[in-house]
């Protein structure tokens, strides 16, 4: 019974935190894109040239979110009754996934990359900031209740 309660709490914690964590990873990825673009770090693959992002590629080899993650996160967010920002972060991640698929098929120039990176960084940072704010205030509420 105790394990079941702990597991439930863990599920709620995952449902509330995971989309914000992924937003943080996405934010780091776009930031690294801008850094590598400014430093001129490129890597050549078989048929195209792309930006060299060692940190993001290392993270991507371990974990890369997909449609399954979006589906699970959406179900969890409704099941746990998360806040509006959590649902917004899932919506943003869905949009980002679509964007990823589009950029796989087209070639882009530097100006377009800068614009896309800045836009994505602003949105992901705003969502991330809200997530951190919620986390801090939740901890304060727990401390005050104790």
């Amino acid at each position: 019974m105790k394990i079941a309660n702990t597991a439930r709490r863990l599920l709620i914690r995952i449902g509330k935190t995971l989309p914000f964590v992924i937003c943080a990873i996405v934010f780091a990825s776009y930031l690294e894109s801008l850094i590598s673009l400014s430093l001129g770090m490129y890597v050549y693959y078989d048929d195209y040239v792309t930006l060299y992002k060692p940190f993001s590629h290392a993270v991507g080899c371990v974990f890369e979110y997909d449609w399954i993650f979006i589906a699970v996160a959406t179900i969890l967010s409704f099941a746990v009754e998360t806040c509006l920002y959590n649902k917004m972060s899932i919506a943003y991640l869905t949009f980002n996934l679509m964007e990823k698929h589009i950029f796989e098929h087209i070639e882009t120039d530097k100006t377009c990359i800068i614009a896309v990176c800045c836009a994505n960084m602003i949105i992901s940072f705003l969502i991330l900031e809200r997530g951190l704010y919620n986390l801090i205030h939740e901890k304060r509420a727990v401390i005050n209740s104790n």
Partner: protein
Amino acid sequence: MGITKGKIKISNKAEIRRKGDFQKAPTPTPRDNGAVFKIKIKHK
């Protein structure tokens, strides 16, 4: 015996030719949580 050797040689050559027909496997795309940008190169 000599004929057998010759046959083996021929079959080996044929096998090599078949291997060469295969297209070289492309390098896997880099895995990333953000978008992977394909950069346009200006040819001079």
